[in-house]
């Protein structure tokens, strides 16, 4: 498919939905349909609106239409020796840039590089009032008005239709080396807490119950020195892709899969099911039929999301009542007719 500006068609469909008061189910590649609650509504497919609008590697900024396949964006960056440091997962070849932003999921590098929202510089959005608006821009620093661009990241399409995003990109590291250390989880987490306070070039850290997997990224000197210091067995870097895309055997079908996002220094945790530790402890995957996962995550100071479709009626962590009220008020202001993905995140939003 060729690059194409289909913004007007998207706008027409939103206008029609406004006129008929019919909700819209915003869809990119639908690769993350498993995530979130079921949405009733007419499908608004963003994929015709695609293409890279502007990319100048020396500005470290790329502007891309929301329906562009994520794989196409990543390939263009790769060709220029650059990357999206937040390493968003695709979960499928069909994943789009808009879906990536709206889902807000980041990969193994996240604790060191920042999240998807951290790299959002600007967006164009179709609002619930049927207007096509622009927020932020293509510059690194911009504090004019409220930061609606970053608000869109992770909002699962509940606040508007993203048509275009500008993202900060970075050069790929000069050197990248992955290792495996056969140490148990207790020792691994305590080591990670110690290393975290030192200028070591760690850019991914996962523990699967048996071994600690580390990625070192930086200049030749720092990576070599860190490798000499840490030792370990060499590891094929495809491990990180498999982790990110949930292709490790841990993720094989079975019990409901939960993602726990937790403070990074909790140490080993008793969780009601098999677990996989990522983000040096700040993200933990658990396979469990327990109905207490949300309460558990909250008791640890974090939150949990169910990644298995249909396993629970409320996959996202329930919000405190006051916070929920402000979510509803914000939704009511930006999407007064409740057209966009009603109930995708929360029944009330």
């Amino acid at each position, binding site marked *: 498919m060729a690059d194409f500006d289909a913004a007007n068609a998207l706008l027409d469909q939103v206008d029609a939905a406004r006129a008929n008061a019919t909700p819209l189910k915003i869809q990119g590649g639908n690769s993350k349909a498993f995530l979130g609650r079921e949405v009733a509504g007419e499908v608004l497919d963003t994929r015709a609106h695609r293409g890279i609008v502007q990319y100048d590697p020396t500005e470290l900024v790329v502007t891309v239409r929301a329906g562009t396949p994520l794989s196409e964006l990543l390939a263009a960056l790769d060709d220029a020796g650059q990357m999206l440091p937040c390493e968003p997962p695709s979960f499928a070849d069909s994943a789009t840039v808009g879906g990536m932003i709206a889902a807000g999921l980041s990969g193994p590098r996240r604790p060191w590089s920042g999240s998807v929202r951290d790299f959002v510089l600007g967006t164009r959005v179709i609002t619930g009032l049927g207007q096509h608006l622009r927020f932020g821009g293509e*510059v690194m620093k911009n504090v004019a008005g*409220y930061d609606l661009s*970053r608000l869109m990241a*992770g*909002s699962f399409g509940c606040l508007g239709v993203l048509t275009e995003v500008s993202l900060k990109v970075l*050069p*790929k590291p000069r050197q990248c080396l992955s290792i495996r250390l056969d140490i148990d989880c207790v020792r691994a987490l305590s080591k990670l807490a110690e290393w975290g306070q030192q200028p070591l070039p760690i850019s991914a850290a996962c523990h699967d119950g048996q071994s600690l997997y580390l990625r070192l990224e930086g200049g030749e000197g720092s990576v070599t020195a860190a490798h000499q210091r840490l030792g370990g067995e060499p590891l094929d870097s495809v491990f990180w892709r498999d982790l990110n895309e949930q292709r490790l055997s841990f993720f094989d079908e079975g019990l409901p899969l939960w993602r726990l996002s937790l403070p*990074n220094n909790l140490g080993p945790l008793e969780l009601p099911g098999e677990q996989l530790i990522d983000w040096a402890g700040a993200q933990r995957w658990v396979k469990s039929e327990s109905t207490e996962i949300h309460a558990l995550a909250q008791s640890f100071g974090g939150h949990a999301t169910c990644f298995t479709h249909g396993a629970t009626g409320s996959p996202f962590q329930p919000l405190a009542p006051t916070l929920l009220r402000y979510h509803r*008020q914000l939704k009511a*202001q930006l999407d007064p007719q409740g057209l966009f993905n009603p109930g995708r995140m929360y029944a009330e939003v």
Partner: protein
Amino acid sequence: MNILYDERLDGPLPEVNKGELLKALQHALPDLDILWREDELKPYECDGLSAYRTTPMLVALPRRLEQVQTLLKLCHQNNVPVVARGAGTGLSGGALPLEKGLLLVMARFNSILHIDPAARIARVQPGVRNLAISQAAAPFGLYYAPDPSSQIACSIGGNVAENAGGVHCLKYGLTVHNVLKIEVLTIEGERLTLGSEALDSAGFDLLALFTGSEGLLGIITEVTVKLLPKPQVAKVLLGGFDSVEKAGRAVAAIIAAGIIPGGLEMMDNLAIRAAEDFIHAGYPVDAEAILLCELDGVEADVHDDCQRVREVMTAAGATEVRQAQDEAERVRFWAGRKNAFPAIGRLSPDYYCMDGTIPRRELPAVLQGISRLGEEYGLRVANVFHAGDGNMHPLILFDANQPGELHRAEALGGKILELCVKVGGSITGEHGVGREKINQMCAQFNSDELLLFHAVKAAFDPQGLLNPGKNIPTLHRCAEFGAMHIHAGQLPFPELERF
């Protein structure tokens, strides 16, 4: 157009009876420090943008969260506008008081509550000074990365409210990238926790929305920030260039070489000479532009990158490239840059600091445009520039004692910002809109976009009591400003086409 609150353009403010409000506050909060006498209020009449002054109706200086909560509830019930202030170093008049409003000073909340080195976080009260966090973290080999030049004075609450930056943003991010969690009180006195000690939170990213919201959405009562391990070494290179274009090309080439410096700053000739006169940093005073490039990290990498940057600068046409030979020289190189504002202040009775951002490739054209505008307005402009991230700080030199000069400086500043918008940039990179750039907001955003901003505000503060008149202009003001003609691809400011 006058910058002070103008009810005709900015909307009517509720009439508040000062005596009754004072009585009600004293009754509800007998132990709250409230200032109300004219001579006590006077010192609070401006923030860092001292050209604009308004005496607040009352000043409250709470020390406890419950005081703030009760005060807000009372103001909400009585329809009293509330302007928050941290340290008052803001440069855009964000904490400029209202005659008909209460100034809520959060500076006494100055305790560092907890530093957790293993988790690499610090939990602090909003009045804690930026630098104090890094000082408290230093014994653990950690620091808080965003470092505005005002860091010895500005508060972390003000940093969050402005999404403050510093010279290390390109590599280490802005405030928004370094804050994990904030505690907020809404105008109704409700407590909200936004973010968490985990790396993300459930629901919409209200933490991002509140960062940079300039005290219009809620009062920040606690901040949890990320701490980073201190880089092992930092080295700085100074490159001299005989044209600004070449220096600009060197910046692009450094980035094209895959290097992200810890800091990458440019100064033009007027700024170089001013700084050299003041600090004796060792800058080449004949250069049209210098670049300061700091590389930090692990020793071996920094050594390699210094070599690369030296080659890149030379290839881009640098007339000289010098690496600071020791820590003393490195500090001197930076001292020149960090003292550029006061140095330029010595050239002229007054100066006015702008804060536009542009795509870096537009730098030569914009600098040329600024110099022509300067000629047109009969004022000198010196330029210091966070070159790595496209954030310009043109400093307009003027003399407020000369009739009309302040006005000319403001008008020139406005034109410079409009030029930034024209080339795809923004009217503010880090200082905020506040009151100062309220008119230029009309140039950057169309009326539908501004209405959406007002809608966001209404979700949190429907009565518009928090910091009214700041950050987002009314459409009425924009109509008067007469700049509502920017729309879908149509370039505004045809009068600037000659640049």
